[in-house]
């Protein structure tokens, strides 16, 4: 079973002081930079294009193609912005990566910046994870000292500065244009497109925004070649990626494997569902991706496989829920998150999540009225696809998919509280006295 794993990004995580420059270099780190700086920027972009690397932040847009959209004739400076505002419920890949091996990202940023002719690159890190922010700052400082950043990198004549920026705790700032507003010192709310960031992004200049994992994958591609990368994964979803298993699973954690692996295989690697329990439902890529059930255990976890199952690969954050879990309560918790994180800019997201939370609380308490399931679906249909950005689409995805798979459990909410049907203490991973595990 272990042969399913392809540790590249996570290869050095177990080494002592893996986050230090010396450790990273000892394992062959920063060799890709030297190689890239001897190529033309266009050739670097071509390698990434040829590798088939697609955005690991969830949308799966081809990374090399994104780089090639940067207009060459625009006189403004070009910027690379790395989105490290990882905040989605369940999603937990970028933070461990940055904690364990920040230099992988630094090296990737140097190569990507060189490819798009950028001389100032930014990392926007979720503000709550202070330890990651500090580690990234230290890594950047080390890289400056070693001559990988600053003027005339490795004697190539190429200059690059990296700015490590901490967000202030808003999920919406993971949306790329809201991130840019926040980075500029404004309140993070999504921008109207067009203009797209590739044309007028940060400070109204051409900007490439990539996920941490996408950029961190670049050094290995440069080092080993596009063909090597393409040899992993499936036809349209190439390469390796980080799968994050959490919840009712024996050994939760990061599993780096080729795209196209199935949940069944991953569960085998993780020791299976919590002992004595069975899989009830799961998310393929965080709470914004429609949930799946045990019938989807063998669907390939790649962009196409998940789209075929009516969901999305997302951030490959696989949250596993066993049969003790109330899907109503889970949906309520997620919706409460979206209500709290809605930026407030547009009506459907702001008002709709406010309303859905109130409806779901009634379902949870067994106080919903007969017919409220259809009302909830209708309200959700007035929110999804109508909002300014994709936040609301994600917010309704969990509601509509939960009803699609577990409608009768919602209908039970017409008469019976969820905590009676699914005593909450039973789904906890630790002892919870029955008297306490209530509906707080």
């Amino acid at each position, binding site marked *: 079973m272990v042969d399913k794993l392809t540790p590249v990004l996570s290869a050095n995580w177990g080494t002592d002081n893996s986050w230090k420059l010396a450790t990273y270099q000892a394992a062959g780190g920063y060799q890709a930079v030297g190689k890239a700086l001897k190529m033309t920027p266009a050739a670097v972009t071509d390698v990434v294009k040829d590798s088939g690397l697609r955005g690991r932040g969830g949308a799966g847009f081809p990374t090399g193609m994104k780089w090639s959209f940067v207009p060459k004739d625009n006189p403004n400076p070009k910027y690379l912005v790395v989105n490290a505002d990882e905040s989605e419920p369940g999603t937990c890949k970028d933070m461990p990566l940055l904690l364990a091996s920040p230099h992988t990202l630094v090296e990737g940023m140097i190569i990507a910046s060189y490819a798009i002719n950028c001389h100032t690159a930014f990392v926007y890190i979720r503000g709550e994870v202070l330890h990651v922010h500090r580690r990234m700052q230290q890594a950047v400082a080390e890289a400056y000292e070693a001559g990988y950043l600053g003027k005339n990198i490795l004697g190539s004549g190429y200059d690059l500065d990296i700015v490590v920026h901490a967000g202030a705790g808003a999920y919406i700032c993971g949306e790329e244009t809201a991130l840019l507003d926040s980075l500029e010192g404004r*309140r993070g709310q999504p921008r109207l497109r067009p203009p797209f960031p590739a044309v007028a992004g940060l400070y109204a200049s051409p900007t490439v925004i990539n996920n941490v994992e996408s950029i961190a994958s670049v050094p290995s591609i440069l080092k080993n070649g596009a063909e090597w990368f393409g040899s992993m994964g499936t036809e349209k979803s190439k390469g390796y990626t980080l799968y994050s298993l959490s919840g009712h699973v024996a050994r939760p954690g990061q599993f780096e494997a080729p795209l196209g692996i199935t949940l069944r295989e991953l569960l085998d690697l993780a020791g299976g569902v919590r002992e004595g329990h069975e899989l009830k439902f799961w998310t393929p890529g965080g709470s914004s991706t429609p949930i799946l059930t045990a019938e989807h255990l063998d669907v390939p976890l790649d962009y196409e496989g998940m789209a075929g199952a009516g969901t999305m690969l997302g951030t490959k954050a696989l949250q596993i829920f066993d049969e003790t879990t109330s899907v109503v309560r889970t949906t309520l918790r997620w919706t409460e998150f979206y209500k709290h994180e809605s930026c407030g800019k547009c009506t459907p997201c702001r008002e709709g999540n406010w309303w859905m939370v109130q409806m779901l609380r009634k379902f949870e308490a067994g106080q919903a009225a007969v017919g409220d399931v259809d009302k909830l679906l209708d309200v959700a249909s007035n929110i999804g696809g*109508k909002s300014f950005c994709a936040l609301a689409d994600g917010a309704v995805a969990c509601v509509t998919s939960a009803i699609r798979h577990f409608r009768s459990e919602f209908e039970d909410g017409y008469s019976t509280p969820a905590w009676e049907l699914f005593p909450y203490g039973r789904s906890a991973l630790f002892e919870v006295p029955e008297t306490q595990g209530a509906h707080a």
Partner: protein
Amino acid sequence: MSVVTKPEQGAVVVETVTLTIDGIEVTVPKGTLAIRAAETVGIAIPRFCDHPLLDPQGACRQCMVEIPDMGNGRGFPKPQASCTIEVAPGMQIKTQRTSEVAEKAQRGMLELLLINHPLDCPICDKGGECPLQNQAMSNGGGTSRYDGVKRTFPKPVSLSAQILLDRERCVLCARCTRFSEQIAGDPFIALVERGALQQIGRYADQPYDSYFSGNVVQICPVGALTSAAYRFTSRPFDLVSTSVTCEHCASGCQLRADHRHGVVRRRLAGEAPQVNEEWNCDKGRFAFVSGRGDDRLSTPLVREDGELRPASWPEAIDAAVAGLTAAGNSSGVLTGGRLTMEDAYGYAKFARAILGTNNIDFRARPIGVGEAAFLAQQVAGRTLAQAVTYTDLENAGQVVLVGFEPEEESPIIFLRLRKAVRKKGLSVTALAAFLSNGNAKLKAKLVATVPGSEADAVAGLKLAAGDVILVGERAALAPGALTAVVAAAAKAGARFAWVPRRAGERGAIEAGCLPTLLPGARPVADVAARVDVASHWGSETLPPLEGLDAPAMFAAVTAGELEALVIAGVELSDFADANAAREAVAAAEFVVSLESRFSEVTELADVVFPVALIEERSGTFLNWEHRIGRVNTVVKQVNAPMTDLRVLAALADAMGTPLGVRTTGQARAELAELGTWDQPIKAEAASRTRARAAKKSKANDGEVVKLATWRMLLDGGRGQDGEVALAATAKPSVARISPALASTLGVGDGEVITITSEAGWYSLAASITEGMTEGTVWVPMNSPGTPIGELGVVHGDDVALSLGGAE
């Protein structure tokens, strides 16, 4: 008169796009938004955040449409906000009229907007004219499915003394914040917090003091923003609306005055795309209650044994006629800058045909030596077609401001310049003592100019064809500045426009209220012009000599050379030397005053006639562009006083020579019949304007510096009386000096300094201003407590500065 014709405008080819909306083929200019394209064929898509004059926001999501074909055969998978989608050739758009998807999206959005909206329409100011209410009726569901808890907030929040916010009504469309940032340039309100708690907020240490704040009340699509002045005073359906032209400045805003029970309750910006678009300033919006104080004159007054007492109209007319007849042509007429053109014409004719004098001047303000000649040669008789317009400003490459502060002195010019700066790359150059906040918002380049040396600064300008120079009223005080402007414009092929501050000044020139000009720009000095007017009027002759201007009249009265004055509601402290004006009016043998409120002149007059307020009369204002703006009677009272014109006609009748006009319509018709003089004006007719003797400052009063001064939009002007909340948003009075001058004086920012002239002094807080021209102090000209006329000095004069307050 020299006529500068407009530069030929080449035929502009507009690229168009043809698309289909609900099966109807539409052709619109490229770049048009879908929602706007639908309007052209009469399809109204409901909307809240969309506003044609603001940048698209796409926030309310009310205007969703279905687009089955983007023009490339492919459709959008989801419905789209039509306020953010630009049309494309061959695009197919289906609105709520033909698409179930669009209809459901819109109905659903209204339901969502209403879940947290209070059902307080019966007590909401907006109820009855509320876009949310209207669209809930036309595009919403009949009942609500929402049975949850509504979001509430403590209410209201004061954004400023004038603007109040009821947050629970707000639909967060960001029209107000976009207006403040994009249009006015005063981003003192912003969206704060997030999610359902998102709300409009103001800075803790800075209220929303913007000259344009009232507009946000008007464009708010719900009743979230209200004004302290109008809140809870009326319901829209009880109001009667009248369109008027604003009486404050010369911008010429079209307004809507709403009255109920004979009382004006509010004024709104009217729609005038070529003038004020859909905006106005807070002065025009809120300052309309000055006539409601207890200083309103209700009956004529006559002086008996040194005391004024109420008198009947016949008695007062007889008394005025006796005094004026005795004085004959030894009279002078001061009309001020606030009359309608028709009333001004009444005075112009009364002076010449009845009193027999050319002593008439509308300029109740500091005047310059060459000003009358400039006005006669460069301003009088121009038509809108020949003049610089708002549109010309918008399309100019560069606009130069000479002795003119747009935001303070003509706020709609300011808005239009700002629009052009934002959208069309206009560059603005300001000749001033410092870069004011208003000009900074225009990204203006400052040519630091010592007051009085504007002529040199103009000569040094880099101008190109198509540039426009805007000349303010105080440019005339700088020797040679006006001729320098004319010369510089001619040399470069640029154009210029004179922008007076008061609404009635431009019309007063046309009406003949200058000592050198008869109605229709006819020079007094030209015998043919005099004969022309005399024959129209049926007069035997008209006085041949050019008359005295206002300061000359005061000097003549004080010297005993002029006996009587007819004064039409002017403030003596507005003149360059308030004390000289006061002395003269007190010394005059006989003074007749026509005014609506008790004033300093009332106290010195022999006969006083009460006249109608602006809201009680009709007429015409000519704005700075020479555009006609109609004033319509707003409130019709059975006991309304007479207009100036009516009183003058009654006086003329009693003096034995009918004025020939007594109604506004007659005056307008006669003025139109006279037309404009089409003969060239002889260069520089001998001007009788004398150089002014300023109240010089002496070095022992402190550091002698040049005075720069202009009026703030909101100041001590009497037209703003009674509107407390408006006054509270005015800028504080400060004296601006450069850092170097501050260190010479040893004064710190905020410390008190004293400005001294021969006639007196003012003490006020110093504001140390970077970039301020050296050797110069700026003070507001007429802010509460600092009417500069009382010091007898004008822009460009010497004053002395000293540290600390004077005793």
